């Protein structure tokens, strides 16, 4: 086999594989993308427009299951939230009291319990009002598949030793 047809075959195969992963992402990739979208929606800057703020406040609860339980312990909020309505209310109050928020969800370790259920741990970095000392928290989450989407069912902070 000469070099050109071989290279062409490799390029076509790579392109096909890339297209396949784009069209049919793995559950792990879907979950990672969901987390990134959630972090982007939850973060806001001081110059955020009112329309964008309203859009984000309406969008964030849709990342959660209707029976979601969220245990949070951060500078912004400490306590337990149940259901989308409470989550939305907490988001609205935290946004009212802060000028900016930067949330990053990194290094998710995802374990698929079944085709519709996943458990994961992720490192959450929270920078409130451009504080030079970011707050770091490890979160344990449970996500459930609903149609083509993965929804967060539970979130709880854990200690490093619990990993």
């Amino acid at each position: 086999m000469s070099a050109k047809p071989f290279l062409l075959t490799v390029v076509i195969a790579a392109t096909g594989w890339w297209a396949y992963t784009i069209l049919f992402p793995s559950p792990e990739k879907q979950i990672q993308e969901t987390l990134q979208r959630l972090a982007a929606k939850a973060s806001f800057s001081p110059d955020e427009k009112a329309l964008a703020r309203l859009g984000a406040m309406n969008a964030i609860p849709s990342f959660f299951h209707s029976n979601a339980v969220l245990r949070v312990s951060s500078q912004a909020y400490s306590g337990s939230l149940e259901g989308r309505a409470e989550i939305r209310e907490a988001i609205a109050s935290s946004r009212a009291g802060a000028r900016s928020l930067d949330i990053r969800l990194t290094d998710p370790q995802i374990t698929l319990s079944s085709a519709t259920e996943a458990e994961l741990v992720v490192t959450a970095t929270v920078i409130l009002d451009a504080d030079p000392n970011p707050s770091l928290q490890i979160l344990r989450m449970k996500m459930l598949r609903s149609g083509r989407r993965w929804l967060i069912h539970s979130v709880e902070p854990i200690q490093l030793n619990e990993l």
Partner: protein
Amino acid sequence: MSEIETSIHPGPNETESSSGLWKRFLHGRAPGSTWIRIIGVAVGAVILFKGILIPIKVVGFSMFPTYKPGEINYINRFAFAKRDPQRGEVVSIGTTGRQVTILKRVIGLPGDIVSMRKGVVSINGAPITEPYIETKNGFSTRTPVQLETDEYWVIGDNRMISEFSKIHRRHILGKPLF
């Protein structure tokens, strides 16, 4: 001979020779070995900076004054390959991955009983001297902490803001190079 001279000193209208020079500039006289060198350097860099010396940027004042925000450092992944972390050593602690790691100082070793009152740490009941900290005010432990085998007690040098925690040996990724 004249051909060689032409290719080394091309005239303004000699486009083929210019293109030859350009190619030589890109991958030298022997493209094959140049590409092998490039790939070798790239693979070497990936192995070095992903597996041996992980580059980090310090964020926050938790380790102030030893490490300041914005400083660049490298985590030596093999620092504790043949020995265990010692009291007073700064270590890098992994979280759920390596994208975010935490720099803390090892204070309590396996088997120690650690307590802290307003930033002053006591090991097995005796206060220890810590020349690397500037302020002794800070958090206090409610009760003394007994460390099990493979457990370490770590805290940042800035006792005003750094929280202490108990970690397992497996969470220690390595040691900062500087």
